[in-house]
């Protein structure tokens, strides 16, 4: 998955520096090129984060709109980092709402077909994915970036702009929260 900083050419950008970086304007952004290069991986990341295809498309669109309309767009080479961070952060506001919606979602019917091994396996996986999405924001971010995007602690820290120690903290807490869901797969 071409999402991690070191594998995609993105760089560490401090929030403060990013907000104050040079006189680049939105007219310099190659929106078409950025979309072709990054939209699909970002969309998949957003789906994994939210579990909702329509919402994921909205988030990715919003991220690109923000790049295009930013008073100080990201510097060349940092666009993916900017987009990725924006998608992850945008998913937070929708996360709580989705959690409530899932809590009230009807369970799938327990018919004979659902008992088949493959279907059962997929349902278990879905439960695990839902459990990940029910985690607090940063725990979910770290878990998805680690196990979907194959990022290292340091890469996750750079994407989320938190310390590697915080990444470890979030992963430890995520592990504790996911115990039941993971045991169901054994």
């Amino acid at each position, binding site marked *: 998955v071409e999402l991690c900083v070191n594998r995609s050419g993105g760089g560490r950008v*401090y*929030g*403060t*520096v*990013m*907000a*104050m970086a*040079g*006189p680049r304007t939105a007219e310099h952004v190659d*929106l*078409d090129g950025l*979309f072709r290069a990054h*939209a*699909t991986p970002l*969309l998949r990341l957003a*789906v*994994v984060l939210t579990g909702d*295809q329509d919402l994921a*498309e909205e988030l*990715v*669109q919003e991220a*690109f*709109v*923000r790049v*295009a*309309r930013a*008073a100080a767009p990201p510097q060349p080479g940092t666009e993916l980092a900017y987009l990725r961070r*924006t998608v992850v*952060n945008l998913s*937070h506001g929708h996360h709580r709402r989705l959690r409530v919606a899932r809590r009230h979602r009807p369970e799938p019917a327990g018919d004979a077909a659902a008992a088949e091994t493959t279907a059962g396996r*997929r349902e*278990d*996986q*879905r439960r*695990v*994915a839902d459990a*990940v999405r029910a985690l607090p*924001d940063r725990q979910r971010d770290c878990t998805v970036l680690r*196990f*979907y995007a194959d990022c*290292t602690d*340091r890469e996750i*820290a750079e994407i*989320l*702009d*938190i*310390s*590697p*120690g*915080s990444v*470890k903290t979030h*992963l*430890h807490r*995520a*592990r*504790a929260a*996911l115990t039941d869901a*993971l045991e169901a*797969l*054994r």
Partner: protein
Amino acid sequence: MTPTDPFTEAEAAALRDALTADAEETAEAGAEMFDGIRARAGAPRSRRLPWVLAAAAVLLTVGLGALLIPGDSGDEQVDVADRPDPDPTQPTELPDTAATTETTASAGDPVELPPRPDELVGVTEDGRLVVIDVDSGEELRELWALADPTASLPDDAEIAPNHIAGVALHPNGRDVFVETCCEPAGGSIFTVAIDGSTGEPTQPTHGGYGMDVSADGRWLAAMSSNLLLLHDLTGGRTRTFDLGEEGFEYARVAVNEDGTEVTAERVLERDEEFRMLHSEAVVLRLEDEEAVEVDRVRAEPGRRAIGAYARFGSVSTGTPTVESIRVDATGSWGLEVAEGIGIVWYPFAGPPGGWTDPPEPATGQVPWPGPRLVDAAW
């Protein structure tokens, strides 16, 4: 998989399968999406203007004009000279000196301490920045609350800190530096007036975590991964020092009176809940081109090291859990924020080169009814 990874191989594989299955069912981003982006990207953005102006005003107020210069005139990065390259997963073996084997020096003759302040600024676990009376523990006023961090923000302001992680005060007694996590980035530092005159901040002014301000008021020191950042509060460029040793986590820095020396606390051990159990302090002299390590002191297991001005001490990390430790600008007072206790003051009046252990009972315990404090400064 890292040695400290909490997930087993089987759990990691299960998570990968579960999350990848969702991604595999996702269609590629199509032309309709791009059309939508183009349509919205062309819309007027007049709403931005007040916030751009507000951000500019904040930045000008704190004298960060130098950071606005683009290109190669930005941060300076230097390596620590002649540093060994330890295994980052293992604690560093220290030279066999007295300073590295014991946490504190013996007590000397009592010295006159500067008075404690009347007020503290504390951070609560529910995201509030409050001014606290030191004697009574009474909350005097609230400076910032993040109960709903996005409520007061414009739609396109990419600032939504979801918790306050730390606090430091400028010696002018007015400016409070507030460290937040994690929107738009962990270690976004905001500035707010202690009298509330500036209102709640909306844009970060600096970056980093574990911060401290020099007694001369010029330097705001903070960490970002292995980078030590020295922000010039008079408007000069930020100096950046690469401490080099990948894999270590730095928890807090203490900067001396004129920004020429920094003591950084480095984590050596955490428990399963990721509470810090054990740390060491590294003293770095900041020269023009490099940060030179001049001393390193490891606390005993079960204690956290603290240091400033070539003095060292430690506090127990047992029960109650230490949330934060800090030393005042004179190196005379230590402040500990501990879970279940609140704030405790310790006088550090040992001889040069060391502090005494905190006396029993602690000199000053500030009653705090909660919610739990995570940091405090004065």
